[in-house]
């Protein structure tokens, strides 16, 4: 089963994503902070990472660098409520940047697309 790591400091978002993505047939691992995510990433070695940007302590941009350092080829989706970080070159290191929405279709489509590309 393909596994997804969701990193977000918001409990309700983690809960929602876990439910929706489990229903889609993925194994979901959760991290509530950047530091936690680094530990879990090393242990769980997920197939794809979805991360929030604004988090207390280590933010999503710093985490992105650390994740790529552990695995340069891991697909990463930035999932933020803000579009302003799109201009930040550091976010360009991610494979996609998706604005948070109550409709998760775009996110789900992107996850599938990136996982399929990776398989090739």
């Amino acid at each position: 089963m393909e596994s997804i790591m969701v990193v977000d400091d918001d409990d309700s978002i983690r809960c929602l994503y876990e439910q929706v993505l489990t229903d889609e047939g993925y194994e979901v691992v959760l991290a509530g902070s950047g530091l936690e995510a680094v530990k879990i990433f090393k242990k769980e070695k997920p197939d794809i990472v979805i991360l929030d940007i604004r988090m207390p302590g280590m933010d999503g941009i710093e985490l992105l660098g650390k994740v790529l350092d552990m695995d340069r080829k891991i697909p990463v989706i930035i999932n933020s409520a803000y579009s302003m970080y799109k201009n930040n070159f550091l976010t360009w290191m991610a494979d996609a940047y998706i604005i948070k929405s109550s409709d998760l279709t775009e996110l789900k489509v992107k996850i599938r697309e990136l996982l399929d590309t990776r398989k090739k």
Partner: protein
Amino acid sequence: MENILVMILSGGKGERLYPLTRDRAKPAVPFGGIYRIIDFTLSNCVNSGLRKIYLLTQYKSLSLERHIRLGWASIFKPQIKEFIATLPAQQRVTLNWYKGTADAVFQNIYSIQQERPNLILILSGDHIYKMDYRNMIRFHIKKKADITVGTVKVPIDEISRFGIVELNNDGGIVDFKEKPHQNNEQIKKNYTLASMGVYIFNTDVLVKETVEDAKRDSSHDFGKDIIPRMIPRKRVFGYIFDRDYWRDIGTIDAYWDTSMDLISPLPLLNLYEKNWPIFSFKPQLPPAKITLDVASQKSEIVNSIVSPGCIISGGYIKKSILSYNVHIQSNASVEESVLMNNVHIQKGCRVRRAIIDKGITLTEGTSIGYDKKDDKKNYFVSAKGIVVIPKTRVRGEKYV
């Protein structure tokens, strides 16, 4: 002028320039008496009005960093957002050493983000040439290019040493091959265009391309990976550098040849052009002094460069470069050689076709460059037969 950031790749190991690179990074190797190799590229930047400069360093960068601090930092004004700074493989984005030229840029996306320039000029820290980058920048803007590669004419029999570029009539690059073998079609021509390792990128294109490259299995090199992949899908142009002097100091022989280019009466590389000064760190030293040797009634220097602090008390010096504080005693002869700072040549020594690194003392009667067998036994000798005596590891150590 556009908001332009310069990134100078200064992290190569310089293995083919060993032993001059035993204790220092290649761009920090002394050159031309009072300069270091990096001074030529940096002077090009300053003379072209480019004053936001990052040097990407990693191997043995201490002497390079010291040189930048002492010789260069003070001519940049941070008050008006000018700077020169070194970026060692600094673990800002990842924890790795730079794996290639493109990876060095990728690992410094943080610094690019801090500056957010429109254009980024990528240069090598180990080339000797005088170039006004503004002409190439204007060309880049006029062509609405995504990337412009600086090219220079090289003789056809040397193509296997360079990245070879083929242009269409509009200046667009149609083919780029890294160190190719000659083919029959090429042999018919007299020269071809080689990449100088000088690139202007639109910043967004550079970031996208290096990020994409970072996620691939590749050698993470601009010449081998990034540019060939960009040719079919981006606006890739080649700018032809119109002055013909450009040298990549890759090997000991290239270092020696380039040094010799400085000293002929009409030098290929002229250090005396007033409108293109070459800046460097200049220590406070007394003028060079040449005295008459009482015994031989002679002290002869021809076609040579003599730097401040030198004392020539007799002897014969021909086609040589003497850096700071070199002492030559009576009856010594030095020909076609490069002597770096604080080299002392005692009475009766004979030196020919040699590079002597900092601080070496040749004791009375030593002969170098006259007996191939003997030289090979005692010193490093290059393919062309240039003898290199590396820096001493012990202060005051003498060669006999």
